[in-house]
């Protein structure tokens, strides 16, 4: 008995495309096999990720001594990379929740992209934080001996909750699309079909099912906003709960959250640009999407600028001893080139370019978002490392080598490996899932699915 027969026998109705329009939609949006460039891309990412994995085995064998971290710079690029991952994962809540709850209609083709970024980033945030541990095999101590007074435990709680809700936000609206994949991908291997079938949870497209999805999505959208604020605020508290120069700031929560929304927005723009060109999605991701996302990015950048001014100008105005030394190191000292490059190209230039309509065309917008993403990564480096080189007790009697921090190749390899791993996860999800929610687009275009649904989902 074939699979379809089994289904028919069990009385399951299989949603079928109603007309040619739906067929066109399916042709455009169902997952496609990798092209040659896709395969090269995956190979490239795999090579980087495997190098990182190899470097991690070295670290496991020899300990954190393979890194450039020492007693003073006891947190390095693993931590800044972790903050970067947590930051970029906030985009899921931005598009799925903030835009949803404010009834923004054009967000539909971007929801899945942003949830894919969110889930991948938060997965690798958890991985990289374990990489940073001196005793990764004692990870379970966090659950057995956890002290609720420690910000790390808050982070564990809020990040795992955020991960679950993000996963649900990705998964629930996938159900109708998984059913479409199950029934419409031609020449699919049996086991793949089986997986789609299992994942589709026997989706039949009844009114009741749509109603459940609709309601759950609304609840999740409301839930994810405090959680998103929570994960990045708590991450900022890992720094702000200490006495260190540059971290001892009550501004840190909103400063981190605003920067996170900004880099997340840039992440979606970069991904939607690449996918639009690669999969020829001009019909679905239009100029209007770029223009709107550009406007959103400039708004978020302006908010971030505001918090940067608070963070640097007010501290700089007072120039309190160690705080002042730390700040001068950023402004004019050894970190000045990186600091100004990051501030100018990661924040000022994007604001200037994006306030103009021409700047929000796909190509300039794409380039600007890459600036923002790269800038955001280095910004997090600048938040973590220079501070640790400015402790209260001066470093003048510690070994020269400990007075600087430049990551070793193992640290770079592991960090790049984790970034490649996150991109691989994004690539894999794009390969197996419809990148644009088919059923939502169909809804919007008024295409009747076989089982008509009178609900409107936005």
């Amino acid at each position, binding site marked *: 008995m074939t699979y379809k027969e089994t289904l028919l026998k069990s009385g399951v109705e299989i949603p079928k495309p109603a007309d040619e329009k739906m067929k066109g939609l399916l042709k455009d949006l169902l997952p496609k096999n990798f092209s040659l460039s896709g395969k090269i891309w995956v190979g490239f990412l795999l090579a980087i990720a495997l190098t990182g994995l190899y470097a991690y085995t070295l670290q496991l064998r020899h300990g*954190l001594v393979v890194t450039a971290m020492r*007693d003073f710079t006891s947190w390095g690029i693993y931590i800044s990379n972790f903050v970067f991952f947590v930051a970029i994962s906030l985009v899921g809540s931005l598009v799925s929740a903030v835009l949803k709850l404010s009834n923004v209609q054009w967000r539909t083709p971007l929801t899945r992209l942003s949830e894919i970024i969110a889930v991948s980033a938060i997965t690798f945030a958890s991985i990289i934080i374990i990489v940073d*541990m001196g*005793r990764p095999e004692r990870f379970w101590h*966090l659950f057995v001996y956890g*002290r609720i007074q420690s910000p790390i435990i808050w982070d564990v709680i809020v990040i795992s909750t955020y991960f679950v809700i993000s996963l649900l936000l990705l998964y629930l609206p996938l159900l109708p699309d998984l059913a479409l994949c199950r029934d419409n991908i031609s020449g699919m291997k049996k086991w793949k079909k089986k997986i789609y079938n299992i994942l589709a949870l026997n989706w039949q497209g009844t009114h009741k099912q749509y109603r459940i999805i609709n309601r759950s999505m609304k609840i999740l959208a409301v839930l994810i906003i405090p959680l998103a604020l929570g994960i990045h605020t708590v991450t900022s508290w890992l720094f702000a709960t200490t006495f260190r120069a540059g971290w001892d700031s009550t501004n840190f929560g909103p400063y981190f959250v605003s920067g996170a929304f900004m880099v997340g927005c840039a992440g979606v723009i970069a991904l939607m640009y690449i996918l639009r060109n690669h999969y020829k999605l001009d019909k679905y991701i239009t100029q209007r999407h770029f223009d709107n996302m550009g406007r959103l990015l400039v708004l978020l950048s302006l908010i971030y600028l505001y918090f940067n001014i608070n963070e640097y100008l007010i501290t700089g105005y007072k120039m309190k001893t160690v705080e002042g030394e730390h700040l001068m190191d950023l402004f004019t000292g050894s970190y000045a080139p990186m600091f100004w490059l990051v501030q100018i190209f990661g924040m000022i230039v994007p604001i200037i370019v994006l306030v103009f309509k021409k700047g929000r065309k796909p190509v300039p917008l794409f380039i600007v978002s890459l600036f923002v993403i790269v800038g955001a990564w280095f910004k997090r480096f600048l938040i973590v490392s220079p501070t640790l080189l400015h402790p209260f007790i001066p470093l003048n009697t510690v070994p020269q080598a400990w007075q600087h921090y430049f990551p070793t190749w193992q640290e770079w390899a592991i960090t790049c490996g984790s970034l490649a791993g996150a991109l691989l996860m994004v690539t894999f999800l794009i390969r197996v899932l419809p990148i644009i929610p088919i059923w939502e687009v169909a809804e919007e275009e008024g295409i009747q699915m076989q089982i008509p649904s009178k609900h409107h989902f936005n």
Partner: protein
Amino acid sequence: MRYVESNESRRKFIKAGIITGVVAATGLGVFEALSDDKIPKTGEKIKLLSPEGKIVEVDSSLINPNTNIPDIPLSSHNVREGVPGKKFVMVIDLSKCKNAGKCRKACSKMHYLPEERSFIKIDRMQDSEKTAPYWMPTPCFHCDNPPCVKVCPVSATFKLTDGIVGIDNERCIGCRFCMVACPYSARVFNWGEEMYALDAERQKQMKGHEGCSSHKVGTVEKCDFCPSHAAKGKLPDCVTACPNGVFYFGDENEDTVTNGDETVRLSALIRDKAGYRYLEELGTKPRVYYLPPANRQFPFTEAKEEKKN
């Protein structure tokens, strides 16, 4: 953990010595029974000193350095227990410190650290451009409101009843949050095995003791006020090693501190010499007091060479 092996083999070695000593003294045939068949006798005699101070001769075949010793912690001392009834406190007299470095050496010896590494640092301080520089030894301050203990996610660092901030190296997950939380940079990390490599010569010199950090790779350590000494009423090694009597150590409950030469009232010392705690404004309430670098015993001289650590 090589020094542990050496201690263990040392103990076995002494045990063998005692047994052979007893055997030789009583003249029973147990010796033969103990050493029979398995290991052929070499006939080569080796002289050993028995615990009673007698020189005994044993066959060299009896002396087998045990190379397969399980990796055990230094002691079964409960790291979470303080010494009852005590409140340890330290006073550091900056007017006497001339950066002799003996405290550092004693510390690294006491804690089986490589020579260039210790739990105490001697920092060159200068409060402002015009003020005179001075040397400031900084151990762990064992704060009463310790930021490191607050942030630890697994309670691997904690406050003991005797005032000491302890570390459980069997529980520490190596997140290093305590290191960034400590405003005094008191904590060090076991980055890797090779940073603690001890040469064979030094291993032999080291004596076993209890309650000291076991240098687990991937965990945090710091000055522990030498708890094994403190429990016996002995002074920490940095205190006794200092040639200038910079360090005073004692019990706040008894209100006395001593640097080995003189024993003084803690309250009187702090009152008369304007004692203070470093960065009092942070509210961490250190248990280490400083006496200002006034009326120096030695003129300030820069370190002779760029110090290694």
